[in-house]
């Protein structure tokens, strides 16, 4: 005994076994089915998009952290995949590289890296390209086109700094019936046509690469919640409050406003509620704060969708929630055991 070194360490001497890389890795795993479904739907273009964005994010993360290799925490991979999933499947790759770089460089590394970013990095990247390339980010392509595994959508390989070519002619050649080139939300907003719940659940709609099948996203989120890698309260608060708000509007004017189910299943709400609003670094930590944060995102999403100039409001709603997080945390401190009043 005495010949050996004795180690001194402060209690506790046990640990739950959860670590940042395990959490992040499992989030990445849980997104793989969504990526797979996206590639199956949109073919080579979606695959190229996802790989490009993820590679850009990983490279940026590595280059901006020269002193320590931070790729091992898997957080940059999450940002990359998530960003890829929110972009249109035929998004020009050079623009995707811009999005990936902005997400990591401005969204994360600038603030000090993992855990220090005030906004969800993937959404920062998404917001940047939304502002910079308004046409490209609303150019949609049909799912399940016949040649999706043999050819790329023409816009994918747009030359850097160039505008993507017009793809109306290309879409016509694909022989996909009834393709309108608009998302269900846009069709509701501008044409007052609601997509059926069945199509929204199974992904037979026009959308970003990873926002198509609400059912699949929900299942992947359920896996994370059950494994306790995600705070289930946030998606419940976001989806619940969005549904309630939509329901209230529908009570007022059933002909104009869509059903709560349509609101829940359309656009990026499911992906946003499960994968982006739950980003740990940018969501509150207090038990009450988590619910307030989720409700703010849910309600804001519906308000932007109904009354804003945009068709989709999830992104800005979550960014708003992120901005309010420090304030929410500050005013929702839990009541400490043995004290009668709330602490500021």
């Amino acid at each position, binding site marked *: *005994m*005495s010949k*050996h*070194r*004795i*180690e*001194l*360490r*402060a*209690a*506790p*001497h*046990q*640990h*739950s076994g*959860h*670590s*940042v890389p*395990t*959490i992040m890795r499992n989030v990445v795993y849980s997104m793989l089915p969504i990526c797979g479904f996206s590639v199956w739907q949109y073919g080579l273009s979606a695959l190229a998009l996802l790989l490009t964005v993820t590679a850009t994010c990983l490279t940026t993360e590595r280059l901006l952290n020269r002193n320590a290799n931070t790729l091992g*925490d898997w957080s940059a991979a999450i940002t990359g995949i998530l960003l890829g999933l929110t972009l249109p499947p035929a998004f020009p790759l050079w623009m995707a590289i811009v999005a990936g770089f902005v997400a990591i460089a401005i969204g994360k590394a600038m603030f*000090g*890296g*993992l*855990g*220090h970013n005030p906004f969800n990095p993937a959404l920062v990247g998404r917001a940047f390209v939304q502002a910079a390339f308004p046409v490209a980010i609303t150019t949609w392509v049909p799912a399940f086109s016949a040649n999706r595994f043999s050819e790329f959508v023409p816009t994918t390989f747009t030359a850097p700094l160039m505008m993507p070519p017009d793809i109306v002619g290309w879409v016509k050649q694909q022989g996909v019936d009834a393709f309108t080139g608009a998302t269900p939300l846009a069709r509701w907003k501008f044409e007052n046509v609601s997509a059926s719940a069945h199509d929204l659940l199974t992904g037979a709609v026009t959308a970003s690469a990873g926002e198509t099948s609400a059912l699949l996203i929900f299942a992947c989120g359920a896996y994370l919640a059950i494994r306790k890698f995600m*705070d289930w309260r946030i998606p419940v608060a976001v989806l619940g409050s969005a549904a309630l708000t939509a329901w209230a509007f529908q009570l007022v004017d059933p002909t104009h406003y869509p059903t709560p189910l349509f609101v829940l299943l359309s656009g990026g709400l499911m992906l946003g509620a499960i994968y982006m609003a739950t980003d*740990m*670094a*940018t*969501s*509150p*930590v*207090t*038990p009450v704060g*988590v619910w307030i944060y989720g409700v703010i995102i849910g309600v804001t999403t519906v308000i932007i969708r109904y009354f804003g100039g945009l068709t989709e409001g999830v992104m800005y709603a979550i960014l708003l929630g992120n901005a309010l997080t420090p304030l929410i*945390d500050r005013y929702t*401190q*839990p*009541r*400490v*055991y*043995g*004290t009668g009043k709330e*602490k*500021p």
Partner: protein
Amino acid sequence: MRFPFLNRTPTFDHGIHPLYHKETGHLPIRRFPFAPKLYVSLEQHIGKPAIAIVRVGQEVLRGELIAKPDGMFSLPIHAPATGIIEALEPMPSDNGEMEMCIVIRVYEADTQEVQVRNPHDLEELRGRELALVMQEIGVAGKGGATFPTHAKLIPPAGKKIDTLIANGVECEPFLTCDHRLMLERANDVMTGIKYARRVCGAPHAIIAVEDNKMDAVATLEAALPADGSVSIQVVATKYPQGAAETLIKALLGREVPAGKRSSAVGVVMNNVMTLAYVGRLLPLGEGMTERVITIAGPSVERPGNYIVPIGTPLRFLLEHVGARSTAREVILGGPMMGTTIPSVDVPITKGVCGVLAFGKKDAEPPQIYPCIHCGECVNACPKKLNPTQMGLLAAKREYGVMAEQFMLGECFECGCCSYVCPSHIPLVQQFRVAKYFLKNREKVT
């Protein structure tokens, strides 16, 4: 009429479910041999150290008084073995400081019978008088805090105690000594409760046991006094269920006000082992010379529950249970709140409830990541503090803000926050540093 859904096993909010490793729970208590030399520290309890009343070269009998208490908030010490006083010298202690010890060279061939003493007539004694008699047997809290038991039982002036809680929760992983004691010495526990209630005046006593020890519940139930003044309450298995604050909340729904003791809500809490030793020793007038300790951990060949003489050096203890050469980390107490010892020359004191040995592989330090604000610690803290914010402040050494805005002083260092932290941030460790810093700053100014 009982509705099962209305009778949820009582517990507290938050907390964690660590791996319990209670493998030693089925092993009967065995007696440990005497080490050739025993090192009896004069600081066996919190409060004033005892004053040695022996000189070098003097022979002492097992159970003989060797140190007297220094006032009311102190305890006497009795010779743990028959032998000769070899020295009075400082020895390393679990907190890293040197503490004065009485060194006894044990007579090898001695029968080690305990010196017979003249017990008091206890039946007439109540309250403070009984407490003074209790002080003579030198029992300190066995849960780890080593509060002198007689002093803890006396209600503060103007306070009335309505409930005595016998804490048989034992929520720390690995430790099973309380469990075995409840199984094997249930009658001692009941006797101890009887005397403790006479001191504190509590009309009612509750024995709290976690629902992973139902065999102990059955044994205790069979030993309950007939008058119905003592009851057994099963609580949910969760860490830190055994802390005073969380157990009082679970049993009585009361919250101990911040900065106050349990007596503020009319409760006195004692560990079941403390009460069992009171129940065994007080009627005999015998001094406390040994205690039951769980010796376990991956690096121990023969783990189990042992009656170990006070003053047994850890080196002897570990050699005897076959600590493997891979043992690198030796912990006194449980793995959640216990302290690693700086040297195997540290002797056993009255507050040691467990000795755990971990090998190198179990003790590899993990990589620390930045805080990712996951909120796991906020959802684990049994005191509903905000370890996330306090951790971020501690990193900036904003200790004053931690205390003023986030009630750092309320943290009782259960370690749940560090246990759950996926970034492996040493949260509770930083809080200890912060508290120590604040305490000593106040001393200076």
